[in-house]
């Protein structure tokens, strides 16, 4: 999920703690801020600290003037082959930044069936990953390189490299001799462990158990939300060594699940604050509140959207390019 969804989920968890609401009524914001920080902390650790120190054995840094996919394919295949011999290899695919808001997109596909890596350059995209019109290179060869290993795909077969920090992989041979591909090995590993969450909560509990409870709750909700996606997390590090795969119910950037989560959390926060008022001036029922604040607006939005899409010709717009490796 996006950062704001994790962030507000942490605040919502804090709002379920009566001591947090009571402290807030008395002018003390600490529990809510702790919940917010703990809610986003796992991703903050990964993206703002750990990833800069995670070493890569192979760094692929394509040149913007020389759009040759073959060396890229060769390096990826060589890494897989090396991993098959027993040595884990970490590989980083760097992005190609053309200017402040333009990036050359390329895709790397690992095909276990054919035993080959295929690479092809694509269009120029904005930082919002929107392809710029007429930006596909005129000549688009496909770089193909064979590897001598049985590969077990851990993530999607085709990886898109476009903006900011490029993706990285860990190729590692498992017990049965297959090479497993771990996407973004530095992400959702030790930082997304329930054990680490408990440890941090324990440290906070040295001051007060209430802070520890809020931190643990917010940490856990982040991990649960991440488990709804594809990558999963290493839930019990250091006991477990690998990420437990997610439920694949959504992608992290999907608009509707993100917005629904944020909106629902805001409603829960409001309700918990309201429920803590001793003699409220206004009287709300939970069902009525959810109907007015969530069900009816979402229904109206859905209906309007359906009508507007129908009026426009029937198909909602999509942003992805039609090309593929």
């Amino acid at each position, binding site marked *: 999920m996006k950062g704001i969804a994790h962030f507000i989920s942490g605040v919502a968890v804090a709002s379920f703690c009566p001591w947090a609401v009571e402290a807030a009524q008395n002018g003390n914001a600490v529990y809510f801020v702790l919940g917010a920080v703990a809610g986003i902390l796992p991703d903050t650790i990964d993206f703002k600290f750990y990833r800069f120190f995670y070493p890569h054995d*192979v760094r692929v*840094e394509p040149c913007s003037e020389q759009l040759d996919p073959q060396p890229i394919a060769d390096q990826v295949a060589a*890494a897989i082959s*090396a991993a098959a011999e027993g040595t884990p290899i970490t590989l980083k695919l*760097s992005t190609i930044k053309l200017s402040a808001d333009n990036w050359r997109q390329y895709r790397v596909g690992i095909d276990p069936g054919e035993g080959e890596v295929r690479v092809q350059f694509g269009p120029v995209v904005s930082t919002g990953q929107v392809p710029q019109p007429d930006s596909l290179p005129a000549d688009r060869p496909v770089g193909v390189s064979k590897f001598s290993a049985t590969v077990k795909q851990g993530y999607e077969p085709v990886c898109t490299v476009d903006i900011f920090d490029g993706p990285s992989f860990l190729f590692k041979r498992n017990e049965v001799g297959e090479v497993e591909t771990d996407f973004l090995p530095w992400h959702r590993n030790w930082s997304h462990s329930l054990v680490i969450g408990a440890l941090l909560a324990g440290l906070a509990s040295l001051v007060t158990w209430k802070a520890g409870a809020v931190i643990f709750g917010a940490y856990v909700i982040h991990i649960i939300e991440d488990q709804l996606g594809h990558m999963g997390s290493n839930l019990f590090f250091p006991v477990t060594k690998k990420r437990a795969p997610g439920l694949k119910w959504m992608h992290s950037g999907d608009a509707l699940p993100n917005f629904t989560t944020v909106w629902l959390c805001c409603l829960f926060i409001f309700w918990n604050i309201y429920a803590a008022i001793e003699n409220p001036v206004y009287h709300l029922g939970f069902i009525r509140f959810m109907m007015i604040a969530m069900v009816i607006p979402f229904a109206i939005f859905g209906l309007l959207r359906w009508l507007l899409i129908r009026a426009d010709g029937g198909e909602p717009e999509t942003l992805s390019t039609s090309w593929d490796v």
Partner: protein
Amino acid sequence: MKTNESNSQPSYGPQVKRPLRVRVLQNLSLLLAFAGLILLYLYSVNRGIPLVRAGELSPTMNFATVRLSGNVTRDAYLFKSGGVVFDVDDGSAVIAVMGGRAQADALKAENRLPRRGDRIEVVGRLSISAEREPTLRLQSVDQLRLSRRPAAAPAASLVRLADVTAEQEGRQVSVTGLLKETSLPRPGSKAPYILTLEEEGAELAVVFWDRVFQGLGRDIPMPGKLISACGRVDVYKGTVQLKVWEAEDLRVVRAGE
């Protein structure tokens, strides 16, 4: 086999260098920000807080941090929500000074809640809006200097009812008149109690609230009694009134006084 890219890989990779002029501008900007803040700080703290007169406030002074000096005309009142309010007359007008819960608690703990007749110098931030009286918002109790009143407090000037006009709005006055009629609020209402006094054909509404009513022992005088009232002249919806804040400022004048 591990591959170390610095040994065997071709020299790919974009080289992003910042132009020198950006670096120079960055440093200049940092210098400007830090030096400017320090200079601004030194200027502000050494400038002193200006003394203003309550009667000379204008709407453009809203949010100004100012100093006021005068006499307290109303004992500090503590709100149930925790704040505090008292009135100060600096000779030009009366202004209400308000503080939050923290200031109220601090003043109470230090036994420095202002009382009527005390001499006071206070710093705060002005709040001025249309159709409302200006108020001064206390920022810190450390910025409040209090001199307790001497034993005999100066009385408010005694005026005739006919002389209480809109021009005296904000002044503290004393009046005496015959109670013509009373108006009591409904139970639970926040409306005020109103006593209409009469003197030589002139009438004046004396207005007070529940706190004063409680101080009077929940006993309102009967019409026909001679009443003495001390309070502040106010104009409400075009009508001149006398607002009384303390129970001791409202009493029945006994025969022979």
